[in-house]
């Protein structure tokens, strides 16, 4: 009896060790995916897992290019209102059914359908109004007017092509049993703990080297770091700035930084005093030392913004950054009527824990503003309440100046500019929460949306960003960097600027290579 017990104990003890070895790459993410149904996945941990299983028609490469993936080639009609997609042939979904034009039509129609209620329906809804199957592997997308960012939108993970048979057969159960064409197949999901994927041996493209991927859900950063330090995980996301040095000192771990397409900014509510005055908005921009914030508050893990969108996005051009000049800030404030006797008093809204060091950044801004005589109060709200407060219509909107972040995840400037700066997008209709309006900018953004020539679009976005820069609707702060700890036995692991992780090209180094 006693020996049996001991044997059992030994087995139980050996179990975690056995699971940590072998051919499984273990990735510690911050949270468990919420769903694995592509159009319903709204958070990066979900999108990361989905992207290994389900592929999109086009892909947004880590170096910022948009290129065909499930599509072999494509063509636009001369009026740019019809996009013809020629799909790759001979691809099968993981359930053995064929990937074809009908399947693509099914998925894209499902994405924009009312009953699915996907948050990403807007990517195609109203922009593509008909999907016509020409033959088994040719599909035509009809647009009421030219929509230049359409290819970029077809790179978004919510437009992934999943097996219609599986979706119909599994119903609600599909949400935790995705079936796509990707390099990995779904294996199992232990809710709240991990998702495990297994290599697709029949993959149409380059077959992955690693047989299994396991995505762990580990909310506490210190615990994620401990996992990667002990080798119980190979990759850990979101390394806290204060841990970087310690982890880098370990020979078996490498801390990798990757730029993110997420831009962090404060927007001004221009519909009311004091930020209806451009001199005040400029003064605030000149009073804030962005370099210092990136260096000291973010520990260097950021990039000072020189445009409303980040590099690597189509349409990005450097338009500049308001230099740190407290004297100029004081002069501008004085011109606007604010002096030492009558100081400017404002409230800054800031999230706490949503973005990298968000509240610390706001506190730094508060103290820098104090140096030019602006008395700023900080108001933090829990994230749900924060979103609600910033999204109030003009009459009820109490915000003066608030921090938000924006990730241009389609890789096209339209996604990053139209929704944020076009006057039709003022809250609560869109994302323009500072009630900014400039008819000239509206026209440029509309033109860029329908322009057919990429060079012309690039030029239009340059103009648009110059107008935005001159109108100062924001404090242009920084774009974040993603800090990831990766064990050195792993090579080829990619952290994508859209905050997804890509393990399909990863492999384990042999001990000789290490």
């Amino acid at each position, binding site marked *: 009896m006693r020996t049996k017990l001991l044997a059992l104990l030994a087995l*139980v*003890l050996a*179990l*975690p060790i056995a*699971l940590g070895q072998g051919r499984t790459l273990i990735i510690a993410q911050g*949270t*468990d995916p*919420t*769903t694995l149904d592509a159009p*319903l996945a*709204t958070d990066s941990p979900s999108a990361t897992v989905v992207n290994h299983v389900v592929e999109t028609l086009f892909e947004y490469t880590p170096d910022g290019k948009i290129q065909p993936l499930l599509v072999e080639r494509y063509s636009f009609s001369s009026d740019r209102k019809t996009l013809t997609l020629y799909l790759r042939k001979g691809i099968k979904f993981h359930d053995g059914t064929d990937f074809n034009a009908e399947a693509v039509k099914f998925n894209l129609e499902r994405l924009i359908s*009312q*009953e699915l*209620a*996907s*948050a*990403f*329906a*807007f990517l195609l*809804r109203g922009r593509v109004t008909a999907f016509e199957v020409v033959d088994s592997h040719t599909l035509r997308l009809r647009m009421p007017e030219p929509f230049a960012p359409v290819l970029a939108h077809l790179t978004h993970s919510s437009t992934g092509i999943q097996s219609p048979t599986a979706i119909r057969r599994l119903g*609600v159960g599909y*949400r*935790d049993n995705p079936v796509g064409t990707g390099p990995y197949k779904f294996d199992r999901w*232990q*809710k*709240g*703990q*991990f998702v495990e994927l297994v290599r697709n041996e029949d993959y149409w493209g380059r077959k992955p080297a690693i047989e299994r991927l396991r995505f*762990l*859900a*580990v*909310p*506490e950063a*210190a*615990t994620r770091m*401990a*996992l990667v*330090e*002990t080798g*119980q995980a190979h990759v850990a996301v979101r390394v806290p700035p204060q841990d970087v040095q310690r982890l880098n000192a370990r020979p078996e771990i490498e801390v990798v930084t990757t730029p993110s397409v997420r831009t962090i900014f404060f927007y001004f509510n221009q519909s009311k005093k004091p930020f209806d005055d451009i001199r005040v908005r400029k003064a605030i921009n000149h009073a804030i030392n962005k370099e210092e914030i990136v260096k000291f508050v973010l520990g260097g893990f950021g990039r000072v913004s020189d445009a409303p969108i980040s590099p690597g996005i189509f349409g990005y051009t450097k338009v500049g950054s308001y230099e740190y000049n407290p004297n100029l800030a004081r002069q501008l404030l004085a011109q606007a009527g604010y002096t030492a006797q009558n100081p400017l008093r404002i409230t800054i809204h800031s999230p706490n824990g949503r973005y990298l060091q968000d509240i610390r950044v706001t506190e730094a801004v508060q103290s820098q503003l104090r140096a030019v005589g602006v008395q700023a109060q900080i108001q933090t*709200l*829990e*994230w*749900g*309440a924060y*979103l*609600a*407060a*910033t*999204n109030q219509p003009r009459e009820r909107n109490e915000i003066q100046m608030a921090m*938000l*972040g*924006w990730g241009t995840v389609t890789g096209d400037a339209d996604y990053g500019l139209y*929704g*944020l700066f076009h006057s039709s997008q003022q809250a*609560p*209709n*869109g*994302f323009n929460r500072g009630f900014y309006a400039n008819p000239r900018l509206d026209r440029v953004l509309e033109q860029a949306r329908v322009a057919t020539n990429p060079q012309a679009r690039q030029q239009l976005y340059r103009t648009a960003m110059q107008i935005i820069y001159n109108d100062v609707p924001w404090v242009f702060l920084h774009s974040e960097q993603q800090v990831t700890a990766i064990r050195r036995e792993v090579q080829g692991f990619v952290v994508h600027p859209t905050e997804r992780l890509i393990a399909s090209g990863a492999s384990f180094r042999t001990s000789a290579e290490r």
Partner: protein
Amino acid sequence: MTTYIFRRLLTVIPTLLGVLLAVFLMVRLAPGDPAQLLAGEFATPEALAEIRKRFGLDQAWHVQLGLYLANVVQGDLGESVRTRKPVSYELATYFPNTLRLTLGAMLVALLVGIPAGIIAALRPGTIFDLLAMLGALIGVSMPVFWFGLMAILIFAVGLGWFPVAGTGSLWHLVLPAITLSTGTTAILARMTRSAMLEVLSQDYIRTARAKGLPGRVVVFKHALRNALIPVVTVAGLQFGTLLEGAVITETVFAWPGIGQLLVGSILARDYPVVQGAVLLIAVAFILINLVVDLLYGAIDPRIRYE
């Protein structure tokens, strides 16, 4: 006794109804919109409206409440806004983990707290007493969060004796259970000590000693059994607290329990899951209280249920 249990169970219904009503109103009074949180900071109004409609959130409160109650009575707790799975499925996935963690922590607390309290009471003023009570003081005052991270740092990263996080084997349970148990262990130790001290000064203990009973029998049969009533009461209440209070431990150890589910759902304003989870915890709490009340009778035969 059966009638007693039956009557007790009947009183549960209004309690649960009250709990449901309170949580239903509270989640809706809190600012924030489930649709907005699901769709992100830059969702289109159209998408928000669709999501609200999909989950019936566009209806008046009283209509939502009526529908919800009607469904609950039929055993349908609704659908999660975040995962779009049935709430009962979510609870069935997460609750067993919490139960395991809580039982583990309770076991540690009972096995450490009660003996420590007895020893301290038998040797009041000695170094044993001092150490036990100092340990109890540290146990109550130490933040669970810090203790958990230290435990990981020392026993998982440093010594490599235990896995850092996750579930899977009994071995995974050790650090989280000890971490979660610290406060309860301390409370039980202090409670046992004071109850024992009081009982040990009673006349019948002196009588027992005087008639020459061995010390073991006096302590365990005469003293401990009488001292246990308040200890069991506190242990029962603590069990309930552990059930709902495991969230920090769960977060530190990436333990997929109901606490993590509940906090995640509150932050996402996933009303159906919050309601379901609170309801489940309330039911568990009530049942534990009932069990504690029944235990009194087993400990002290003078107690009768009518």
